[in-house]
């Protein structure tokens, strides 16, 4: 874990409201694992608003070039400020933080299940699994083709790539859960599933994985301050213990069986 002034090499809108940010930080790139995240200061040094750093998962990492990239949705103050950075600027970046995905030791098929910008942490994982020789089935959902974040690296890493849009403008017409139900034969052959998206989507995907009998891991979100386990601001409930768990250090990736997710949209 380090803090550094990481140079921006790219900060581009890839779909309306979604940006790809690529930074140079060889130290972070060397250590970053899929599912881990960084805390970024979204304003220039001395501004106090927005104040706190914002957590973003590693979208992809190229160790040879020492580059780390993030895929972010413009939500509020912080992410809006982040869009202003241009190549040559530096972003105060802290990472790698948290506990990432446990990649299956076997070469069996794995499922990547992503809703919306939830795809962000799964691209690096899919690439790593692909390089390792796993069969990768990817299920990606979004409202419409305008927000379907079918990253070229993800498509390349996927043995089979299934897309779903609510309005049917690309791929299967329906939500990602309906798509998964349709493709349960693929899902059931997987040795593990990796899930990230809105909570109701993750909740439905977790119970589907349980139904077909495969283990799964989910990446959770929470408001964060310190990112290192010191402030206890980011906690969530798990079935692991009666105590709260810190999303920033015990997570953000948890075993699907131990998280307690909100099923309400």
């Amino acid at each position, binding site marked *: *874990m*380090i*803090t550094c002034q990481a140079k921006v090499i790219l900060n581009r809108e890839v779909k309306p409201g979604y940006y790809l940010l690529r930074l140079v930080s060889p130290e972070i790139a060397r250590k970053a694992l899929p599912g881990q995240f960084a805390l970024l*200061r979204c304003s220039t040094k001395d501004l*106090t*608003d*927005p*104040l*706190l*750093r914002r957590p973003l998962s590693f979208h992809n990492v190229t160790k040879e070039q020492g580059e780390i990239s993030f895929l972010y949705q413009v939500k509020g*103050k912080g992410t809006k400020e982040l869009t202003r950075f241009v190549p040559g600027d530096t972003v*105060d970046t*802290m990472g790698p933080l948290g506990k990432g995905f446990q990649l299956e030791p076997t070469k069996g098929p794995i499922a990547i299940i992503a809703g919306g910008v939830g795809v962000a942490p799964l691209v690096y994982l899919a690439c790593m699994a692909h390089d390792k020789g796993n069969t990768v089935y990817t299920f990606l959902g979004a409202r419409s083709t305008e927000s379907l974040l079918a990253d070229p690296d993800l498509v390349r890493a996927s043995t089979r790539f299934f897309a779903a849009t609510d309005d049917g403008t690309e791929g299967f017409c329906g939500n990602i859960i309906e798509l998964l139900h349709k493709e349960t034969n693929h899902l059931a052959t997987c040795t593990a599933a990796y899930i990230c998206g809105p909570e109701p989507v993750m909740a439905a995907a977790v119970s589907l994985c349980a139904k077909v009998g495969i283990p799964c891991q989910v990446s959770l979100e*929470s*408001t*964060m*301050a*310190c*990112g*290192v*386990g*010191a*402030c*206890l*601001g*980011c*906690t*969530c409930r798990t079935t692991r213990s*009666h*105590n*709260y768990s810190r999303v920033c*250090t015990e997570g953000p990736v948890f075993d699907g069986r131990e998280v307690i997710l909100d099923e309400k949209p």
Partner: protein
Amino acid sequence: MKNPSLKVALCGLSLRTPIMTASGTFGYGLEYHPLVDFADLGAVVVKGTTLEPWLGNRPPRILETPSGMLNAIGLENCGVEAFIHDKLPKLTPYDLPIVVNIAGRTVDEYPQVIEHLEKAQGIAAYELNISCPNVRQGGMAFGTDPETAASVTRAAKAIASRPVIVKLSPNVTDITAIAQAVEAAGADAISLVNTFVGMAIDIHKRRPVLGNKIGGLSGPCIRPLAVRMVWQVAQAVRVPVIGMGGIDSWQSALEFILAGADAVGIGTAFFVNPGIARDINQGLLDYMQKEGIDSISQLVGAAWK
């Protein structure tokens, strides 16, 4: 001129710099390691510790606000026994005074926590968090009534062999009255301020954002309020004062020192810049060098005149 010195003596503790951590923002000391070099700190104040483990409040527990943040952690902690066995031994090997922040639900719980801590080695001082609600008095915070604040202080002092710092709540009409009451009850030092009570409403859900509904406001937005309180308290008592509330630069640390603080606490700023203690020390040293001041203590309360 010889090198200026940041050394501070504070109720029997000798600090290499006036920069301390603010309780609850720095965990049990090691979470930020190695991002924060302990050589940059005068003392570490650990998370509030209670007699039994506390679960804490339901999430969401934090929210950013303009130039600040609200928190309602609810004093989640592992309890004093687990603290002594699991947390403290990891921190004592470092050359750094350790201050244990203590909280309770009743007046009696404070000396009970201290009773356990008295058996442990490597603690430099206790800090009493009197901002928590007193269940025997309908949930009113101990620190909002001079008599209750004094009785917590007396109960702690009666059993503590180590210095007792009392941390004041700013959510009062006259903070100097509370400060004088705890001084008269034997407090060895006073720290202030804890967070200001606040809240925020989610306009979409039409509900309070925080799980606990109300929370404590910290960060740069409270700084002028905190400086005013430190200014008044430091002039009203003889014991040393630890000032805090929104410090995020050497300039703002100096502001508290000039207002009368012997040392300062850094909280929210660690979240933004883990290197803040180093930056403040460097800034203070450069300033002193330039101004020809050889000890930081010469600046304490220098704005009073």
